[in-house]
């Protein structure tokens, strides 16, 4: 049986939005090369980093993610030529916006990772996980004010199920 991964009191939940041509393939390569990296990350595969909508990141945080990774091909390498340039602008604006709202932008990691950069992928994920573990749970989103009506609906759902 393989080696035990160290368990910490707090394990961050990390969601990654990645493009399928570069980053997703890079992560696959990490697998084929039997590297290991921290198991906290869950990936959503998208055609292009230009398809990554700020809405996804907002939802991921709402859903309890402590950190979000956004990644795609390096500038100039986009499969669709220009998708990552739009992604870069959108994320510049979005980060500034989150920052202005006081939401901790250290919890969003943007990285260019090519299909060959398996090592970079593992480093980005490991370092980011460590960083978010340091930061602790995303308190800004976790001290939830529950909507009573929504709670009521959920309750009803459970009863009928």
């Amino acid at each position, binding site marked *: 049986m393989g080696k035990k991964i160290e368990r910490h009191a707090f394990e961050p939940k990390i969601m990654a939005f990645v493009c399928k041509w570069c980053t997703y393939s890079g992560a696959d390569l990490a697998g084929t090369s039997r590297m290991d990296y921290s198991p906290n990350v869950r990936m959503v595969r998208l055609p292009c980093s230009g398809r990554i909508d700020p809405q996804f990141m907002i939802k991921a945080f709402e859903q309890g993610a402590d950190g979000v990774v956004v990644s795609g091909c390096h500038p100039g390498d986009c499969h669709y030529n*220009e998708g990552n*340039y739009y992604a*870069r*602008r959108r994320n510049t*604006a979005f980060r500034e916006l989150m920052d*202005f*709202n*006081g939401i901790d932008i250290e919890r969003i990691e943007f*990285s260019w990772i090519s299909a060959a950069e398996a090592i970079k992928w593992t480093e980005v994920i490991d370092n980011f996980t460590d960083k978010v573990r340091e930061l602790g749970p995303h308190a800004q989103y976790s001290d939830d004010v529950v909507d009573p009506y929504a709670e009521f609906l959920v309750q009803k759902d459970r009863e009928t199920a």
Partner: protein
Amino acid sequence: MIEQIRNQARQLLENGEVDVVIGYAEGSDPTRTTPVFVRKPEDVDRLIYDARCINSLPLYLNKRHEYTKKGWKKTGIIGKGCDIRAITQLIAENQLRRDEVYILGVPCEGVVSHFEKWDGSLHDGNRASKCTDCDVMIPLDTDFFPGEKPEVDRSGPYKVTSPKVANLMGMENDQRFAFWRDDFDRCFKCYACREVCPHCSCNVCITDETTPSWIDPAAHKKGVFSWHLTRAMHLVGRCTGCGECTRACPMDIQVDLFNQRMKEIVQENYGYKSGYSLEEKHPLITYKVDDREDFIK
């Protein structure tokens, strides 16, 4: 000045060049003005213009408000410089054709921030914050302008950062968060801020969308955050800074601070100012190969 505007409006209506002139009239009490739709030449004398004319009239040109101009081929509109920027932005976004409007530009010296603060004159105590860094007091694109239109250099950046934005940016992250959390606590999602915005022209707003509902309809904290982040994101590089969203908010939430901050960001990073050009595309749908990427690993 207002006489010249009235005369022009009368002529336009008389010879049928426009079907209506949208302008300002005296409101319900002496501190207030109200938008007015003048359709008959004999009514043009109701038109007024002074520092109380806060409302951003281009809202009524937005297609969402089509009911207001049913069957009207051409609309005359009285515009301050900032309103005309909104019109330009609407045309650039294909929400309006230039030949559908006749712009009666007025020179503006600033407006009051709220009617309640009007004490007969405009001064630093009651001037709207958007007016402090205005470079379109002499408006840009007009069909009619009372008198000679002086040349103004508008090439520079917006002159000042809004003191409120600067103040917030001076805070620690957590303080800023606390500021917004407390403010947003009051938001009950009436969407007045959206309804009043000239650039929220979507047929179905993303927040009314249910497949899927990206924005939680409930007015709890997450839902409100998500609404305001989304709204501000959608207005990046498009907001023309009328400040109506804040003025419309029944809960006194200063939502336009978001837009003001994004205005600075867009200007700093992409040198873009909304509402100045019909051709230039807003910054989120264009790019440069050497855009800023200092935050990217």
